């Protein structure tokens, strides 16, 4: 290291940086005291090394790096040949460098051929780079290992940080929507902070966790979605409560450099026991090495407004009551016509209730780098107010990363992220305190604004069982606050030229506290009696991991390159959850446990650890054939003390067949790839050993909250209803995939196609057993589910002109899941408990999670059978009534750039996938839906007479009453069938459209490099036959295996926003 360095601060930013870095000033002084700073550049110094320049300058050259068509090539490296002087171009390809006379510049960038340019007398140079002949794209693979994409034998999708940021989503998972073939993303996008769920290639476990592993900079981080609830809650809490966040929401999209989606077990097999669901590998932005780089500052600010995009239509003719008679003691709107009711009418309840949501997002990032050290500091804040009054989600992120090359053989680095996520949420779903449950049911004669009785301070309700929607929004808030710290330290040691060791240790710690208030007079409290309730919880979760990799590269012959990787991974997880509940407030307006008559508490602790050894050998022959063989052996505490260890193998092959074809203009690149692998799923702790647990039982018939302990001061324990028989082997997914990657027409077109077939085996099933055994469930290794499907991604640079660039692209994927087997003697099991009339089941021979519920009896032609009186006949047993899994998913994007004006559009298409619209069925019954307005007539069900009637097999001509028709045949009243609520969830939506312009300031003297202004719209257009809210909806959230459930879910939104971004 013989470059001459000096600490350099750009004057204009001095004050700013002083403020930003004041917390680091102590360490700065420490290091400045050291005698020989040049030699002892330590990591901490790097944190302060804002920028470095080369000295002995004689001339400044500015320029721009473009591709052959004139489009910008961002971040190219420009060096002065024969020296170590160098700079990096910015995002727009602009650079400025000081050079000695007669210098020759060398310009290089990933994916392009290196080029040299003599400066001569020029002071402004435009360099046009040729695309590299073979694809040089480098992607991040499992364990954060960077590999050339052309060498991979499996499918991987990389989404750039730009695309993530452009989506304007707060939740990084939601930002992947319609961008990754093979990924199904479902959110409750209209609710600030709501979870977003991602499934890669379908569900691989029946009742376990199907979420992919999430990894940030090589360290697994928590992306769970959990509902804090006391250990005495006997039902499926996902069906009610609030829309919790998936913890991945803590990651600031503005900090993301790229996301690699490892879709199958082949890509993720090095994660062993936890790789079976695939993985999402997030790489954060870093500073960039290079000499002469200025301190880079980018700041962006955006404002977004949101409106409800879709709500169920309601009738505005009939008021509350039954049988045409007004009554205030019923939830129904089967009363008289409004003209005859003599009541005030409020027929814009949606307008009265919903508000315009806002989202303010601000980000600032500072990065710098020298030849030996880099750093980046990012600060972000977003403040989101929802369309439902009083709902919000705010997040603040501070991230820092730095790296330095201490010696030519030793690099050390670290990154640290602090996050604060702060939400206030409202009740959702199946709870009488739910906002939508009560708002949608409200009859037109009720004024929702009138929500508090000024005399008593208690709420006013249209029907005594349901809370007023405004009351529940304002007075039953759920607030949660998460503080999270995650990061890692690492070192890379080059022992020999081709032998390196890297070791990375990371931690992810967060603490979420939450507070749910049910104010006096709310019926949302557990006792549903208006006496008030307070739930407090605290969830502390920490995982640490340590990864040691040894890499060796050698050539056996001139043509055969061998890469060897060996490694050890330790992963240790612990979580602690505390729950406290106080019920019956003693005095109003104080929400403290001390102000309650009854107290309850519970806590849960979970500990698990996995130790894994892994290895991988890659053979690369003549740069066209690549074979990789890998394996990992895991020892997991979840398997029990002295439990079995498991080996997960993988092999993949990539063949670049275009290397055998002479260079031509049609096929620029062609690769065939295939992979076989095995990886584990969900080793849930404490499930593999033979044990009998005793639990505090919750004794309820499902209609009430039931009884539990302490009971009259006595403790009680009963054997758990789950049996742990022991002797289990870990569940795993075996995957095969084959794919083709093509680049055509001089790289202007790319096509990537994959077929996969994954079978998850030996699932750990919480399998129902005959209750007469004394147990309800048994933990068992049984059942197989197959997911096979196609993934297609394509892109086409339609126009590559100097002033106009237009590219289109897209992806399409189809996943077909099929339950191959369950346990012996079992042909159907619920994947999660639902409602009594509708469940989600795994049924042998059918797709995963089909709706299972009551249905009408039909003849062979599918016609509904009716009785003599025209009423439909209900099947005696429940059956499968609909598949919630989409037939296929498609994304189509277009990016047009015309003289700096950029227009991007992203369409999101989902075909098929049924949704249980329990909301609509209930509203039919209550007489609120728009179609139920036609009630002064009789209806004839389209069906035929059943056997045993007067005219069996003949077309039905017997009319039924409108009340029967809507309540029972279309709704969920009386002797109804759950199939009434099954609807098609297909959609075609304009997910994002954005129009932007970049002002470039190319003069070396200008302070500002560029200024972007962009207008973004999300969800502006939605086409669907679904009669409820936006069909991208989730009752149960990211922590659930249920798909396609809508029971008074919060609505979705459309957003309009503007973003200003400035680069200095």
């Amino acid at each position, binding site marked *: 290291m013989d470059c001459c360095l000096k600490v350099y601060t750009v004057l204009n930013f001095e004050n700013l940086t002083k403020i930003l870095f004041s917390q680091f000033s102590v360490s700065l002084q420490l290091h400045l005291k050291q005698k020989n700073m040049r030699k002892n550049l330590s990591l901490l110094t790097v944190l302060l090394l804002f920028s470095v320049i080369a000295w002995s300058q004689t001339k400044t050259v500015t320029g721009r790096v473009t591709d052959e068509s004139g489009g910008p090539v961002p971040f190219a490296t420009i060096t002065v040949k024969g020296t170590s002087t160098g700079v990096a171009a910015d995002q727009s390809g602009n650079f400025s460098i000081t050079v000695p006379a007669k210098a020759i510049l060398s310009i290089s960038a990933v994916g392009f051929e290196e080029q040299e340019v003599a400066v001569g007398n020029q002071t402004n140079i435009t360099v046009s780079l040729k695309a590299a002949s073979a694809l040089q794209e480098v992607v991040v693979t499992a364990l954060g290992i960077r590999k050339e994409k052309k060498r991979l034998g499996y499918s991987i999708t990389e989404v750039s940080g730009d695309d993530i940021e452009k989506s304007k989503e707060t939740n990084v998972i939601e930002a992947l929507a319609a961008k990754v073939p093979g990924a199904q993303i479902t959110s409750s996008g209209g609710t600030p902070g709501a979870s977003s769920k991602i499934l890669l290639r379908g569900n691989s476990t029946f009742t376990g966790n199907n979420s992919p592993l999430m990894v940030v900079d090589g360290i697994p981080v928590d992306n769970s979605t959990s509902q804090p609830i006391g250990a005495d809650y006997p039902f499926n809490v996902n069906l009610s409560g609030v829309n919790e966040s998936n913890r991945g929401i803590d990651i600031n999209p503005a900090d993301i450099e790229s996301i690699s989606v490892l879709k199958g077990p082949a890509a993720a097999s090095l994660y062993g026991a936890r790789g079976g669901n695939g993985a999402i590998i997030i790489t954060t932005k870093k500073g960039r090495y290079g000499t002469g780089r200025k301190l880079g500052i980018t700041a962006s600010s955006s404002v977004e407004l949101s409106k409800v995009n879709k709500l169920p239509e309601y009738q505005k003719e009939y008021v509350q009551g039954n049988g045409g008679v007004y009554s205030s003691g019923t939830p129904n709107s089967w009363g008289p016509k409004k003209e005859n009711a003599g009541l005030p009418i409020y027929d814009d309840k949606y307008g009265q209730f919903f508000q315009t949501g806002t989202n303010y997002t601000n980000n600032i990032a500072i990065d710098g780098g020298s030849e030996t050290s880099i750093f980046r500091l990012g600060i972000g804040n977003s403040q989101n107010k929802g369309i439902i009054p009083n709902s919000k989600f705010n997040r603040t992120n501070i991230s820092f990363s730095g790296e330095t090359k201490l010696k030519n053989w030793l690099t050390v680095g670290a990154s640290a992220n602090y996050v604060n996520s702060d939400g206030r949420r409202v009740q959702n779903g199946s709870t009488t305190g739910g906002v939508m449950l009560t708002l949608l049911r409200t009859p037109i004669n009720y004024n929702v604004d009138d929500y508090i009785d000024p005399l008593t301070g208690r709420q006013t309700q249209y029907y005594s069982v349901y809370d007023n929607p405004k009351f529940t929004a304002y007075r039953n808030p759920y607030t949660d606050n998460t503080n999270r710290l995650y990061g890692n330290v690492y070192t890379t040691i080059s022992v020999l030229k081709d032998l390196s060791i890297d070791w990375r240790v990371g931690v992810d710690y967060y603490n979420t506290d939450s507070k749910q208030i049910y104010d006096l007079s709310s019926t949302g409290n557990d006792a549903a009696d208006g006496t008030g309730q307070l739930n407090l919880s605290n969830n502390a979760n920490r995982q640490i991991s340590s990864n040691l990799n040894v890499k060796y590269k050698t050539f056996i012959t001139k043509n055969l390159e061998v890469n060897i990787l060996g490694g050890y991974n330790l992963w240790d997880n612990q979580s602690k959850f505390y729950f406290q509940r106080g019920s019956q407030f003693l005095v109003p307006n104080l929400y403290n446990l001390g102000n309650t008559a009854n107290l309850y508490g519970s806590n849960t602790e979970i500990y698990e*650890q996995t130790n894994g050894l892994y290895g991988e050998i890659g053979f690369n022959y003549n740069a066209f054939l690549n074979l990789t063989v890998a394996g990992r052996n895991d020892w997991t505490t979840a398997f029990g*003390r002295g439990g079995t260890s498991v080996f997960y193998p993988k092999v993949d092959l990539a063949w670049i067949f275009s290397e055998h074809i002479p260079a031509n203009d049609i096929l620029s690149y062609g690769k065939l790839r295939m992979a076989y692998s095995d990886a584990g799923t969900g080793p849930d702790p404490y499930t593999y050993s033979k044990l009998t647990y005793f639990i505090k039982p919750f004794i309820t018939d499902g*209609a009430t909250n039931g009884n539990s302990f302490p009971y009259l001061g006595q403790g009680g324990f009963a054997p758990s209803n789950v049996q742990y028989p022991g002797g289990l082997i870990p569940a795993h997914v075996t995957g095969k995939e084959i794919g083709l990657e093509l680049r055509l027409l001089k790289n202007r077109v790319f096509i990537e196609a994959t077929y996969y077939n994954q079978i998850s085996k030996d699932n750990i099933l919480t399998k129902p057993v005959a209750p007469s055994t004394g147990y309800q469930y048994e933990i068992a290794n049984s059942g197989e589910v197959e997911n096979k499907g196609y993934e297609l991604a394509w892109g086409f640079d339609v126009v590559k002109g100097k002033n106009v660039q237009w590219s289109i692209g897209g992806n399409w994927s189809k996943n077909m899941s099929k339950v191959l087997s369950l346990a012996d003697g079992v042909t159907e099991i619920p994947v999660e408990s639902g409602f009594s009339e509708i469940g989600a089941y795994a049924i042998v021979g059918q797709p995963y999670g089909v709706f299972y519920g009551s249905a009408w009896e039909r003849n062979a032609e599918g016609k509904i059978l009716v009785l003599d009186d025209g009423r439909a006949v209900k099947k005696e047993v429940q059956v499968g009534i609909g598949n919630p899994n989409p037939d296929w998913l498609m994304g189509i994007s277009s990016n047009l750039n015309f003289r700096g004006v950029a227009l991007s559009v992203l369409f999101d298409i989902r075909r098929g996938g049924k949704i249980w619209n329990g909301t609509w069925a209930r509203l039919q019954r209550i007489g609120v839906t728009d179609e139920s307005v036609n009630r002064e007539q009789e209806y004839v069900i389209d069906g035929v007479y059943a056997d045993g009637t007067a005219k069996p097999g003949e077309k039905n001509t017997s009319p039924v009453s409108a009340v029967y028709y809507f309540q029972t045949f279309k709704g969920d009243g009386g002797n109804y069938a759950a199939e009434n609520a099954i609807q098609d969830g297909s959609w075609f939506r304009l997910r994002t459209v954005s129009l932007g312009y970049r002002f470039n300031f190319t003069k070396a003297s200008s302070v500002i490099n560029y200024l972007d202004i962009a207008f973004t719209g999300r969800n502006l257009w939605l086409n669907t036959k679904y009669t409820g809210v936006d069909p991208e909806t989730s009752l149960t959230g990211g922590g659930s295996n249920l798909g396609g459930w809508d029971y008074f879910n919060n609505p979705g939104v459309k957003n309009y926003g503007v973003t200003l971004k400035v680069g200095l």
Partner: protein
Amino acid sequence: MKYAEIKGISLISILFILLIGCKKDDKYFVSPNDPTSATLPTLLAALEVSTINSYEGDLARTAGMLVQHGVGVEGQATQVNGYTLSENSFDNQWSQIYQAINSGDQLLAISGGDENPRYRGITKIVMAMNWGLLTDLWGDIPYTEAVAGIKFPKYDSQESVLAGIQTLLSEGITDLASAADQNAFLPGADDIIFGGDVELWSKTAWTLKARYLNRLSNKSDYNPTDILDALSKGIASQDDDCMGKHGDGDNDHNQWYDFLNERAYVTASAPFVDSLLLRPADTRIFYYFDSSGFGNTVVGSPVAVPEVDVSYWGSYLAAGANTPTPLVTYFEALFIKAEVLARQGSANAADVLNDAIKASCKKVTAGAYDGSSIATYTTANTTVSRVMYEKWLAMFGQVEVYTDYRRTGYPNLTPNPLGATSGHIIPKRFPTPLTERTTNTNAPTPAITDPVWWAQ
């Protein structure tokens, strides 16, 4: 590499090995959240609370609607009212009862052969109550192979289950007779129902014996002498009543009260209300139902087309969260005796029936009305049908009434004309629960219109 560098790498390696080497606690292997063993008091309390819950929860509501004590006006209750008994509606209760039996088995397993006979005795009696509820509603049930580690327990005949109940009760009575000092531990407040009073348990067991012997009234094994003998050793006054105790704490609530507050899907039924109103002196109706809001009268909903603007449960079963509910009572014992005597044509039948009515009135009205003005039966008009009619009026909210109706055909109810069963008949059993059907290859699926064995 220099020596110093090698040293550095070695140091890192040592740190690393330290990380691997840590010995792991039990908490990594055995859940720190739940115990792997339980104690006699905790198991007994769990068993009793579950039993109380089973006797007053969904099973009692459903049975009550089928005998027209109540009318279902909302949710699942409307389906019951229309005689659609969904197979999945009973999963919770069916499982709950078998889990209670599992608690009982675990208790017997840890109580030692003869170290804690009183715990064993109470446990056997409470288990018998659970078996009784199961077989009454479902007929043949898994019994000998149930809760025995057998994957697909076979179904046993109702006859053999009833015999098993008698054995359990007899053994229980013997166990309870043990002297206090023969017990290592004595039940106390953990015995939620009787607080460890073995004499009251013994009386309850005898009355239960009579109850289940009386099931055989249509069968050749019917033995009135045994029934009268059992009753003579059983519950002898209201003070002996076996009651499900409740409290105001969150966990302790009376389930009728909770259902009324959380769902209110079942209302008073017109046939029942109208029957009670035939004798204006009988004030039990104002305790069964809440008359406020109807000008001090009670309004019942018609069965066929339910109405919601009617009366709901009152103070007898749902005055508050802590209202106790009847499990086995003195007046039930008297009604059993009256039925036996009426069948024998005994001259005492009328007196006993009158005593039963008075005991009921006294119990229901908390002594406010002694019932003597309506307890006016004479030998001439005391028939089995009248006994069963009076018992229907008296045992409001108890599954026993549905059992009696199916066994005797009294009272002569008018079934819901819109009922979904063929011929609109009142269902004669509960359907095999969904989970049992799908998980036990031995599970039969009789029609709900098939009578159980003792009703055949």
